């Protein structure tokens, strides 16, 4: 890069360097990409990440397992329950927990699918905003508000719920909360139709998204895409189906796929995923089993509060768990899960102590960035924002 002191324009090249981000309205956070522009057309795109580095992976090495859960919320901050789940499943694998109480799994599924709908609503809103349809953005925010209210009801926090814990969930669902979820489930399909009526057959939307940022099957595999991007390219791959966790095999749902792998197909896939998530939540509500909401092994999960005053053993377990935490056997594990953006998984190495020896996140947004920048080449600058929006990156998990 021959950038002179006088500025970016005066160089011996015909192209213009455009510094997009980290403070740009549509790079979805502090993502920076250096665009080499030939007029309106992008010749090359060079990503630059790290502006939101939080050191979560490193910090986790000095945190007890249960203290890691709130940090995983801050990775993909748009669908925190899925990060919680991925972390807890891995920790449970290391602990050798085979099966959780059915109610715990169902509550996890409800939270995760609510998180997926919430995340897709944010994606839909910001993606539409990038392409200029501002009203969709505020409509999507309106429905997301309901999810945030539900989060607050069950966990006390609107975004960073930390609701899923090792061995179950933080607390049992109240009837009011279940009513709220049911109301949301009845409410949301009409609203999705509303977004679709504004976009799906809108000629301008079609012009702006069809044939843009195309990725074939092979390319999508080679660039290690996952989640909706992979499915939009025509590969029927969903960890919830392929290797069911958390009793996903007990639910009936479709995995939407499309063939062209362009921005429009990714839009269609995600919109359909919202409907399918709604189906899953509905089934989970209808068949929600009774019983404990976490395992009863008090060496892993906290004993019931009211037993602390009556049972010596409970008091000891409580003291040990709160002051020392769970000791996880030596070993390493990785459990892939299907997050809102693609495959989310934590690779955890344990040395037998109460903190992870090493924690590594497989972040779908991070894996999507090289492929995204490759799509930008030859596109118009207006397509660049459409492509960034269609990959749906969250900088929290890219920079971690």
């Amino acid at each position, binding site marked *: 890069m021959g950038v002179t002191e006088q500025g970016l324009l005066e160089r011996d090249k015909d192209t213009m360097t455009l510094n997009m981000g980290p403070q740009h309205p549509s790079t979805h956070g502090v993502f920076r990409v250096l665009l080499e522009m030939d007029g309106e057309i992008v010749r090359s795109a060079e990503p630059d990440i790290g502006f939101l580095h939080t050191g979560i992976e490193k910090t986790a090495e000095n945190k007890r397992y249960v203290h890691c859960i709130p940090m995983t919320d801050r990775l993909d901050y748009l669908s925190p329950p899925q990060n919680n789940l991925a972390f807890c499943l891995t920790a449970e694998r290391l602990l050798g927990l085979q099966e959780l109480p059915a109610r715990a799994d169902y509550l996890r599924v409800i939270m995760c699918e609510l998180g997926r709908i919430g995340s897709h609503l944010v994606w839909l809103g910001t993606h539409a905003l990038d392409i*200029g*349809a*501002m009203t969709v953005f*505020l*409509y999507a925010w309106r429905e997301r508000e309901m999810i945030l209210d539900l989060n607050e009801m069950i966990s006390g926090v609107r975004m960073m719920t930390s609701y899923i814990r090792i061995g179950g969930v933080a607390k049992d669902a109240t009837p009011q909360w279940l009513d709220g979820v049911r109301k949301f489930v009845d409410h949301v399909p009409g609203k999705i139709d509303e977004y679709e009526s504004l976009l799906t057959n809108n000629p301008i939307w079609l*012009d*702006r998204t069809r044939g843009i940022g195309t990725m074939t099957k092979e390319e999508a595999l080679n660039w290690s895409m996952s989640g909706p991007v992979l499915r939009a390219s025509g590969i029927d791959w969903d960890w919830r189906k392929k290797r069911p966790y958390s009793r996903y095999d007990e639910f009936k749902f479709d995995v939407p796929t499309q063939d062209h792998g362009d921005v429009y197909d990714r839009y269609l896939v995600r919109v359909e995923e919202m409907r399918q998530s709604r189906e899953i939540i509905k089934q989970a509500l209808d068949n929600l089993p009774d019983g404990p909401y976490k395992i009863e092994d008090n060496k892993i999960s906290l004993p019931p509060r009211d037993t602390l005053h009556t049972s010596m053993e409970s008091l000891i377990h409580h003291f040990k768990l709160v002051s020392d935490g769970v000791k996880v056997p030596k070993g390493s594990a990785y459990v892939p899960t299907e997050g809102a953006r693609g495959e989310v998984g934590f690779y955890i190495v344990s040395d037998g102590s109460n903190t992870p020896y090493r924690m590594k996140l497989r972040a779908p947004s991070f894996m999507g960035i090289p492929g995204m920048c490759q799509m930008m080449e030859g596109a118009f600058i*207006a397509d660049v924002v459409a492509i960034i929006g269609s990959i749906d990156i969250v900088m929290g998990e890219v920079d971690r």
Partner: protein
Amino acid sequence: MWIDLAITMVKILFILTITVGFFAPVLTWVERKQSAIMQDRIGANRADILGFTALGLFHIIADALKMFTKEDFIPQGANRALHTLSPIIALVPAIVTFAVVPFGGQYMLWGKEVSLVISDLDVGILFVFAISSIATYGYVVAGWSSNNNWSLLGAMRTASQMISYEVAMGLTIIGVLMVYGSMQLTEIGAAQETGYWGFILQPVGFVMFFTAAIAENKRVPFDAPEAESELVAGYFTEYSGLKFGMFFMAEFIEMVTIGAIMTILFFGAWHIPFLPTATLLSMFDFLGDDFSNLVVMLIHVGVFFGKVTFFIFVQMIIRWTLPRFRYDQIMKLGWKVLLPLSLLNIVGTGIVILLF
């Protein structure tokens, strides 16, 4: 002599008050509230004077105060003179176009014939186009003088878009000019008193002119030059304070201009359907000659600005409904769809006029 001058001054003052003083600021509020209604939210309601919020109308004052008191920032390496001059070049033509826009007909008031137009040019519509295209220089110079790549891209887009759509816009109205046989805006307006309105005689021209006019004003879906999600803010990225306010005001005044031109060319100007001026005058006969003329004049001015408001509202509804075209798609629409269609429209109109 003096009385003519006085009348002209009053008309100029009226136009300035209604565009700069009323429409531009109130439209910012209307746009906020209207979008809020469309988007299922409340909208501006916080600015208050002693606890009164007046539906958020005080936000206009707050906005104005903010613009006056903000730092006037000129970026490093910018051309200071041009950077300061360009908002003026953009704003002045927007106001000047109103010189030829009639906002009422002719009325006999106390023995003096008053025509509600500042300057009744016989090439009226041509003057509007000529003057409004000067504003392009303001935008281009603004983008260039800011020493910012985003501004530069915005300026390039503005230049190409405005020049392209001026061609299409000019050709779309030729049909109307052929039908009414005049370029004088007062005559076109007067011709629609008893005859058919422009949009019935020229439906294709009406739709195309509206499209081209929105593109000319750079509003959604044609707002590529200032697309905030792509170019940050386009040509005015590096503008702040009152200079930004001038660009902002120019856009809103242009909205009013478009509404006014649409009303005159296609929507019967200041006339009420099936109610010619003579009939209206006879209804107020009991007031005497002068006062009945005065009342009719006020009604006509009201009707005219009512129609203008309607078109502004339509523009706003479009703005909050549609996504944005890509830059090359805007060009394609202009050159490959609007231009051939408007040429066809001219040929078709010509044939119809020749035959009947």
